[in-house]
């Protein structure tokens, strides 16, 4: 918000003369302060104060409307950025993040350097943040908000939290004030009290939160982003900008993962790169492979297409300082040795083509037919993305065409189904004998056609279990006009039995 107002250099200029800032929102029918800066606090402005009271204290208070959606998006983007420290990042309420840094600290030289780095980088982006490290999320939460130390040594939660107020246990306000009336003011008071009466008086929640903070009960974090099966990353002291550098790095990362994949017998189906730009923006690019792949060249070739498709959308700015390659989905890799006798059908080459096209155009633009067992023509098939068609076996659409629609004996010569089906049946103006004759003359897309030959009707009833009662059946006619065009038309609704004025539709074209 501040950045929008004073430009990018707003942090550099000290602005003691500027008025304090507050964020306001309507709470209980009154405009109240939701958040304010330290400058405002020093003037005596408090959170939850009404705006009129605050204005009385500081007449030139700067107010901004609270926009929770934007705040949430901002927090999510910070969450994504925190992926540079650990893949396990979870949101915590509306104003916090949990980072599970088990096993990650040595990459940054320990816990203290990690915290320093995190706080420094966030400050450089214009966020003031407090961070704490502890064995349990609850203890870290308490320390970050109410504590004095940033790091609690392993197993020392009880000592560290002893002096903190009860609100540090993530209790709600009512519970805190109830406990305060009974003389429980700090976390330390609860440690030595018998548990059973506490549970009876205040409910299980209190004890559960207490146990979670102390590490006696497990707390499961749900990370915002899916955790990759394998991850490899590269940090740069000098940010990289050029596409070739990025691709070269991807190639090296993929090569470094190769032994791991080989040992596990896996191949990559879906992987993603994350590009951390120096100013905090994170770009994610994912590619899919139609079959498990392992060769680093093929993986980087897919990303080459993906980057080429982006053109200028990938704004490198001042460069990327971290590049991470995540393997999101891996499958068993079929180690096949090409035999001399086996027919070479270039299957592998075709797969590479489909993967490349998918990486460049988007996977949903490479389609294959999927079939459903129904007689309604437009429902009997769909175009499914090739790269997902294999994993969708559970749906109603299947990989093979049902036998009911295949050519039967008596139609061996002539066609009964058109070659092209219009996306949607298009209404035509038709003159046809009642009750069930073929159209004699019809107008489709402004052109007039006269029927010379016709065949029909072929009745296709509606699917009442889907369309409900009262849906019309269709009478299909194959019609040839004077010039030899053959069309597939239908009358929507049976004359008099279903409707008095049935409409005609054009649905397909014959070769």
């Amino acid at each position: 918000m501040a950045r929008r107002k004073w430009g990018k250099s707003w942090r550099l200029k000290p602005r003691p003369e500027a008025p304090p800032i507050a964020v306001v929102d309507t709470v209980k029918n009154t405009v109240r302060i939701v958040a304010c800066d330290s400058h405002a606090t020093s003037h005596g402005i408090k959170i939850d104060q009404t705006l009129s009271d605050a204005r009385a204290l500081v007449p030139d208070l700067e107010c901004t409307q609270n926009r929770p959606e934007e705040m949430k998006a901002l927090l999510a983007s910070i969450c994504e950025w925190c992926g540079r420290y650990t893949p396990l990042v979870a949101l915590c309420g509306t104003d916090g993040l949990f980072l599970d840094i088990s096993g990650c600290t040595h990459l940054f030289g320990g816990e203290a350097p990690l915290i320093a780095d995190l706080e420094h980088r966030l400050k450089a982006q214009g966020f003031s943040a407090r961070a704490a490290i502890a064995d349990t999320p609850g203890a870290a939460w308490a320390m970050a908000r109410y504590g004095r130390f940033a790091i609690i040594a392993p197993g020392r939660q009880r000592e560290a939290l002893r002096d903190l107020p009860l609100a540090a246990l993530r209790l709600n306000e009512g519970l805190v004030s109830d406990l305060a009336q009974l003389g429980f003011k700090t976390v330390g008071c609860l440690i030595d009290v018998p548990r059973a009466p506490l549970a009876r008086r205040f409910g299980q929640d209190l004890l559960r939160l207490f146990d979670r903070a102390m590490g006696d009960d497990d707390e499961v974090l749900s990370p915002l982003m899916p955790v990759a099966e394998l991850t490899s990353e590269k940090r740069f002291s000098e940010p990289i900008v050029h596409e070739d550098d990025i691709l070269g790095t991807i190639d090296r990362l993929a090569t470094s993962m190769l032994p791991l994949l080989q040992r596990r017998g896996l191949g990559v189906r879906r992987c993603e790169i994350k590009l951390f730009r120096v100013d905090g923006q994170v770009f994610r690019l994912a590619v899919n492979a139609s079959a498990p792949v392992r060769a680093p060249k093929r993986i980087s070739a897919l990303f080459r297409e993906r980057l080429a498709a982006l053109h200028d959308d990938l704004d490198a700015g001042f460069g990327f300082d971290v590049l991470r390659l995540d393997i999101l989905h891996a499958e068993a890799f079929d180690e096949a040795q090409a035999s001399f006798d086996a027919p070479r059908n270039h299957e592998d080459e075709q797969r590479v083509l489909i993967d490349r096209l998918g990486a460049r155009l988007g996977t949903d633009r490479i389609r294959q037919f999927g079939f459903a067992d129904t007689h309604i023509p437009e429902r009997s098939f769909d175009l499914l993305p090739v790269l997902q068609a294999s994993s969708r076996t559970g749906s109603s659409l299947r990989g093979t065409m049902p036998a009911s629609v295949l050519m039967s004996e008596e139609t061996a010569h002539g066609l009964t189904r058109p070659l092209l089906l219009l996306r949607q049946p298009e209404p035509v103006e038709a003159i046809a004998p009642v009750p069930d004759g073929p159209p004699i003359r019809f107008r489709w897309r402004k052109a007039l056609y006269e029927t010379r030959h016709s065949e029909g009707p072929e009745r296709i009833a509606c699917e009442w279990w889907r369309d409900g009662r009262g849906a019309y059946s269709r009478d299909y006619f194959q019609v040839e006009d004077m010039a030899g065009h053959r069309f597939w038309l239908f009358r929507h609704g049976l004359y008099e039995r279903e409707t008095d004025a049935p409409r005609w539709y054009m649905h397909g074209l014959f070769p």
Partner: protein
Amino acid sequence: MSSQRRIADLSGIVRAHAPVSGRAPLGAEVVDRLLGGGLVRGALHEVRCDHAREIAAASGFLIGLIERLHASSGRVVWVVDPATSFDAGTLFPQGLAQIGFDPARLVHVLPHDLATALWAADEAVKCRGLAAVVLQIRGNPARLDLTATRRLMLRAQENGGFACVLRQSAEAQASAAVTRWHVRAESSAPPGALWTPPAPRWRVTLEKNREGRTGEWSLAWNSECKVFEHAPEIRSETRSAENSGPRLYPSAERPGGAAQMGQVVAFEAAS
């Protein structure tokens, strides 16, 4: 088994899986004779039609050509320019199956614009093992000029693959293609005759043939044997009523130039 016999077997296998080259006969004798034995496999071809309503005829003819290549295992990559899909509809699997084409072989590529469509077609032609690559476009876009078609042609020649541009609502245009076919619908039976749904049939004009003469025929498709056949001429009264007299060609060897593009279907209101 003697080693000689084994070598003979192996060389037979090698020959069987060698890159298919040469020609694919269509089945209709007159056409095959003009083409010098059949359609060239490793080359670019072109099929066009005048109107959107004839795109089914043109697609059907093209699928017939692909079937004649006898590459029954390979996939067919069908790159569709978004401009066409608006009024052409989509290929219908049941209809494809009735013609004798396995719809599971078809891979649709639906790019955002013509430039990416061309790129995709280029990439697909480079790939070996595909039965055919089809680029379906609308009209005569400037982007698909002689250079672009020449590139497709060269790629197809390198790999021995079959590439085809399917032009909908298009005029005849110079391109690097080996052949250009103009497909029109044709009446299947004289008026008043008993009519049953016929096999696919077209009035096909070979407008361009790099290696021989051109010509115009009525062809029908036999779905069972998967061959083209010469269809018996149907005497059409309306055709002769529309054009009083037979069509006169300016040259003895080539069919007449393209008819005026488009069709006036409705006049503006006279006010």
